[in-house]
């Protein structure tokens, strides 16, 4: 079975794939790799690898404070990466871009800041925290910890049967006691693209802060933090063609000024004596210790790569591919999509179950054919509980994914069904 009709808006994947060495890999002896695990991590183009190598071979030094050439070059490259990220997300100021180690740290950072903050931000036993049932564990556990430690109450939006947020009781969930509402822009398990405006409007009404987990959005669509009107936005480098070990927290400047630091150490201070210390202005206040320098520089190169292709084009490509994949998958007997069954308001991650064949078995038999998907709860176990399933199989696409890979997946699933049939 191969693709029968033309898809519109696809990128020139033949050219793009040349930039990604790993996509040429053969697995299990002679199978061509079909990499459909992009929601877990994306592959890394040569341009990013070359930038990182060049950093180490020519400019490597610790940043800030150095008066020698290498230190100045390294600092310029590191801070240059901040400029790139700032413009990629349309941040009003570069100083609002904080480099962390991953999205999880970004989310924990905010949760911790709010625990130690003064009024009006302070989360304590009189206050409430709101999340949703479709969050990644990295946007659940930090708030559970904060709730346990402060006595605050953790509340959440439930899900509708078709994998969307149930906002019907929004006024009861977000109340005058709510200090922070944190939710995912695009779900990594359901693929759902959530409505921001309604939530932000209600949060602003009650004076709550809004944090958006854009880990699955930043890689795949134009992201404009000003348009979102959130207070904090988190995402992670390794899902957007960048290296591991780098994440981003964007936060509104006034908040970054007002809120207390999280980790203490070198780089984040203004002046230190044994008795007390004062802190540097943001972003440095939140970047304790030697930052992930090469990783930030690599992320800058990834942002350049994405920008050259154009995030609108990336989005259009994935949308066409996702529509095609949804359509084809729905034709597979016994396949049940977990999440929205149309390509509207969804990202390029598609979860499903296949009869009562356990996802581990689905994944393993696909792997034997060279097809890499992820199986399990995808760090979003409450979603599995909600839909009464132990796990799902998830295929997720990116700018180098092709209709032929969708076909390979569908054929692979046929094989799985026969194998366990």
């Amino acid at each position, binding site marked *: 079975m191969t693709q029968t009709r033309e898809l519109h808006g696809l990128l020139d994947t033949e050219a793009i794939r040349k930039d990604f060495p790993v996509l040429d890999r053969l697995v299990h002896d002679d199978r061509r790799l079909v990499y459909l695990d992009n929601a877990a991590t994306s592959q890394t183009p040569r341009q990013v690898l070359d930038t990182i190598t060049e950093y180490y071979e020519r400019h490597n030094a610790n940043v800030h404070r150095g008066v020698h050439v290498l230190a100045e070059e390294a600092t310029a490259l590191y801070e240059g990466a901040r400029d790139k990220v700032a413009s990629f997300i349309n941040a009003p100021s570069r100083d609002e871009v904080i480099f962390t180690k991953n999205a999880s740290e970004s989310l924990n950072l905010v949760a911790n800041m709010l625990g130690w903050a003064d009024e009006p931000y302070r989360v304590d036993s009189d206050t409430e925290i709101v999340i949703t049932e479709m969050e990644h564990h990295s946007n659940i556990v930090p708030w559970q910890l904060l709730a346990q430690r402060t006595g605050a109450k953790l509340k959440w939006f439930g899900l509708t049967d078709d994998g969307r947020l149930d906002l019907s009781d929004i006024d009861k969930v977000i109340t005058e006691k709510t200090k922070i509402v944190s939710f995912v822009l695009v779900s990594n398990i359901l693929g759902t693209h959530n409505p921001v405006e309604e939530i932000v409007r209600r949060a602003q009404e009650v004076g709550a802060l809004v944090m958006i987990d854009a880990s699955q959005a930043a890689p795949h669509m134009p992201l404009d933090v000003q348009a979102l009107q959130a207070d904090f936005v988190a995402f992670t480098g390794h899902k957007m063609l960048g290296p591991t070990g780098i994440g981003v927290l964007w936060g509104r400047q006034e908040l970054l000024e007002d809120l207390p630091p999280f980790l203490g150490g070198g780089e984040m201070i203004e002046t230190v004596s044994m008795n007390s210390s004062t802190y540097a202005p943001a972003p440095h206040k939140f970047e304790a210790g030697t930052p992930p320098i090469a990783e930030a520089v690599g992320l800058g190169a990834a942002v350049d790569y994405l920008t050259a292709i154009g995030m609108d084009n990336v989005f259009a490509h994935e949308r066409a591919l996702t529509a095609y994949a949804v359509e084809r998958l729905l034709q597979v007997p016994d396949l049940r999509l977990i999440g929205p069954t149309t390509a509207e308001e969804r990202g390029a991650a598609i979860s499903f179950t296949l009869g009562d064949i*356990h*996802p*581990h*078995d689905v994944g*393993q*038999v696909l792997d034997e054919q060279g097809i890499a998907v992820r*199986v*399990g*709860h995808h760090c979003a*176990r409450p979603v*599995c509980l909600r839909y009464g*399933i*132990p*796990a799902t199989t998830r295929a997720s696409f990116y700018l180098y994914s092709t209709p032929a890979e969708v076909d390979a997946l569908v054929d692979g699933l046929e094989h799985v069904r026969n*194998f*366990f049939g």
Partner: protein
Amino acid sequence: MYQDVILDHYKHPHGRGLRDGDAEVHHVNPTCGDEITLRVRYEGSRIADVSYEGQGCSISQASASVLNDLLVGKDLADAQKIQGTFLELMQSKGQVEPDDAMEEVLEDAVAFAGVSKYPARVKCALLSWMAWKDATAQALGESARKETA
């Protein structure tokens, strides 16, 4: 890794279902959601029954079926030896090629040798075995308590 033996046990599990027992345990593999509820019944040191219900992948389900085959009717000491050998095989990272002696002990369970190459799946294969060990400790601890009481 999907030997026919494994697929057979998966499709036609032996001894499945919950029957009377001296102890019951519920084990979960949190990374994939595999679950098993398992009961053991002892007659003295002899395993009179191992009954179970569960959901999960072919490996975890087949492994429970093989366990039932291998352990029911055995004396505890023999069963522990079988369990130890199976554990050794599963932790071998594909390095152990089962020899005749091992095949004698493990019978159908040698089919799991291939699974040991897949770290993510080893836990699936061991789920029922860990549950059995736990249930046995409870059952015998229980009767030990009864005896000393």
